[in-house]
């Protein structure tokens, strides 16, 4: 996300210490590569509390709920335009479709420590980069008046291995999405930014809203990032998490303009290309922010926080 800086020594030391504390307490278990973790029951209990708080914030206005697989149809993935904007973060899936002879060659390569994935071919699924991506291809081509709202949750993959616990390769977003006319989308984004701040402050977190941009790739990306800032399309709710030096985005509020409406062929009731926006709670990051703020033992967290999460 946007707050990436040149890692200074203090920040890196603090991040490593936070990671060590999470692993030593058993809250998270090292998944074998940087940025991949197994979650303890205690961690997952916090995540589910946060999920419940987020869901409750949308009660009655969030729309139908959708829970997505970590995978999405490759054809829909291509329409998100992530190949253009974030080629460095995406992940595709390879599958084995070979013969016995190919299998033998694959095993020989694996045994020799060579690249056995060279024997795989592309699957018709890809890893989701953002939860709301799975939604758009399932919407009606003409969005009804007033727009459509959905509450969605899904696993996201970002290839950015790091020892910083906030930068997981696999994590969940709990989102509130709106697709409709421009005004529907902007109103939704702005209302949720306010609501998100209230919800997260209610958990005792030190939060603030900041204008932000996505880490678009390359020269074209610098232009997209500048546009995003110039048009104030993206806000992040930040909090101190793994270091005191840099605030981390734990939620974000994004106005996509007509981007997804255009690539997924969605038309608003005014006849123009549909606009969309989303507000996403980063479930693992909020959980980490709570652990950083209130300590590694949730039994000792303030009663107000405990009752909000697990009423």
């Amino acid at each position: 996300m946007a707050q990436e800086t040149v890692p200074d020594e203090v920040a890196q030391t603090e991040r490593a210490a936070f990671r060590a504390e999470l692993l030593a307490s058993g809250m998270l278990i090292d998944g074998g590569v940087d940025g991949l973790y197994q979650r303890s029951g205690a961690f997952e209990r916090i995540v589910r509390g946060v999920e419940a708080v987020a869901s409750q914030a949308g009660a009655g206005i969030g729309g139908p709920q959708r829970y997505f697989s970590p995978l999405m149809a490759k054809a829909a993935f291509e329409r998100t335009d992530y190949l253009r904007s974030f080629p460095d973060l995406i992940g595709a899936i390879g599958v084995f479709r070979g013969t016995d002879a190919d299998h033998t060659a694959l095993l020989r390569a694996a045994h020799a420590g060579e690249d056995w994935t060279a024997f795989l071919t592309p699957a018709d699924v890809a890893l989701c980069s953002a939860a709301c991506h799975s939604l758009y291809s399932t919407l009606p081509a003409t969005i009804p008046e007033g727009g459509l709202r959905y509450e969605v949750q899904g696993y996201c993959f970002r290839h950015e291995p790091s020892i910083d616990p906030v930068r997981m390769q696999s994590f969940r977003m709990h989102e509130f999405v709106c697709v409709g006319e421009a005004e529907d989308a902007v109103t939704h984004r702005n209302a949720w930014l306010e609501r998100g701040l209230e919800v997260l402050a209610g958990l005792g977190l030190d939060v603030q809203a900041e204008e932000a941009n996505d880490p678009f790739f390359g020269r074209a990306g610098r232009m997209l990032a500048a546009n995003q800032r110039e048009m104030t399309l993206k806000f992040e709710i930040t909090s101190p998490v793994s270091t005191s030096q840099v605030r981390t985005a734990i939620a974000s509020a994004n106005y996509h303009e007509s981007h997804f409406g255009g690539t997924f062929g969605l038309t608003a009731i005014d006849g123009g290309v549909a606009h969309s926006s989303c507000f996403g709670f980063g479930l693992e990051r909020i959980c980490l922010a709570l652990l950083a703020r209130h300590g590694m033992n949730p039994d000792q967290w303030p009663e107000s926080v405990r009752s909000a999460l697990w009423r």
Partner: protein
Amino acid sequence: MEETIRQVLAEYAQLPVDIAAVGDDDDLYILGLTSHASVNVMLGLEDAFDVEFPDALLRKGTFRSISVMADAVRGIVAPKAD
């Protein structure tokens, strides 16, 4: 110059209107140019004029109209001509 820019727009801008009907000073964003399409226009102009836009010009405003784009390209090309 403006004619080449129009060719780039025809190829990359995905405007819902005929490029021939667009005035040199018309605001392309009002006509429907999207952020993502404006990036394609930027890359198309770089190819067409064999230039590279400096970071300071990699913003939406640089591609707001045909005349603004022409000024930007001239500004990049001019120093090279010295």
